[in-house]
């Protein structure tokens, strides 16, 4: 449970952070940080990412 972030695909655009309903994501220089305590596995970020860099672990 949680979100898998693909460093090589990620564009650091921040879109996922904007749509996350739980503020569980943050965009840092190193990439997208996922707070697994806040993440509810809703898949909104996965369906939003323009380049498919986020996948909810099943």
């Amino acid at each position, binding site marked *: 449970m949680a979100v898998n972030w693909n460093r090589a695909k990620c*564009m650091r655009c*921040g879109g996922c952070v*904007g749509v996350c309903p739980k503020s569980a994501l943050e*965009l840092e*220089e190193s990439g997208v940080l996922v707070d697994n305590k806040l993440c509810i596995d809703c898949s*909104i970020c996965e369906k*939003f990412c323009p380049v498919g860099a986020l996948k909810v672990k099943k």
Partner: protein
Amino acid sequence: MRDVIIVGAGPGGATAARILAKNGFDVALYEKRQEIGAPKRCAEGVGLQDFKTLGVMPPQNCIRQEINGAVVYAPNGKSLTISDKNSTGYILERKMFDKWLCEEAVRAGAKVQAKTNITGVLKENGKICGVKGTFLDEPFEERCKVLIAADGIETKIARMAGLNTTCNPLVTDSGVQFEMSGIEISDPKKLHIFLGNKIAPRGYVWVFPKGKDVANVGIGILGRSDIPAVNYLRNFINSQPGLKKGSILEVNAGGIPVGGLLKKMTLDNFLVVGDAAHQVSPIHGGGIFEAQYAGRIAGEVVSDALKRGDTSEKALEPYSARWWKDRGEALQKVEKLREVVEKMSDNDFNFFADNLTPENIGDLCCGKNMKVLGKLVIKRPHLMRFAGALI
């Protein structure tokens, strides 16, 4: 203590900084990225009319291409050419433009600093009174009378300040773009817009020329897709021989808040500007003009509030009121139009392409003369329910 700290050195933040500094206030503008204006999250188009409204024309080195109209392609291949004052404008080079806006802010007396990550908001008695952050990893704290969040769609500052700016994915587009070179463009002085649910579900593909063989080729689709936007973009490029042979000089991506305008944009000692406040055209997704316009109002309202020595939520509220009167009401009308357009099938697009004039489309994109579309919508049973909102 500074008068104002602004987080995010895009067009909104830089415009607010310039106006506040010109009015004699002590302003710092902080940008997280190491280079202002790059990487862009933008197709770089701005209308000539927009610059006239703002009263600030960018210098020639910020402009890549003059545009005198737009060609809209329906799914059946039929195209409509719009050539009016609303579709005349420029494709900018954001790297140059954003820096120029910051240079103007510095000339007016603002301090601008890149590579500065604001990591927290300082509060006193529950009210915002400053920020903490790092510059080149050196920590610092700085107090201010007013804090402005202009830090884009992912705005951490607005959330830390206590405003809910989360974007609803149903009204946020997922965008991706290749800046391409070595391509063929039928008319490099026109914007090229491709509609169709197969190529861009609830969105469009754009080709915005930056020269005779260079363009931003991008796509925005509904931000709730099982297939990433980039796959649609690559399919489109592969279907166009004139694009397929080109090279990719940049890859850009971004979320585009095309709805969910905020009623509440101020707190005590705080306000939010630009993409962070969802100030974007709901039909074409353009935000450069909206951010600058809102940045200007913010700069003026905060200047007044500082002069009076009252920066409470109530004192900053004229920012929301003026923005809603000048921009919000018009954008809300355009949002209605987007709601209809996103329900359109490819047959509908073909029908409207046959029945609307280029002038009609130009008007619609500005929220004007919606009646024309309303009358046509009545003839499409599954869209009829929208007629009331348009007429």
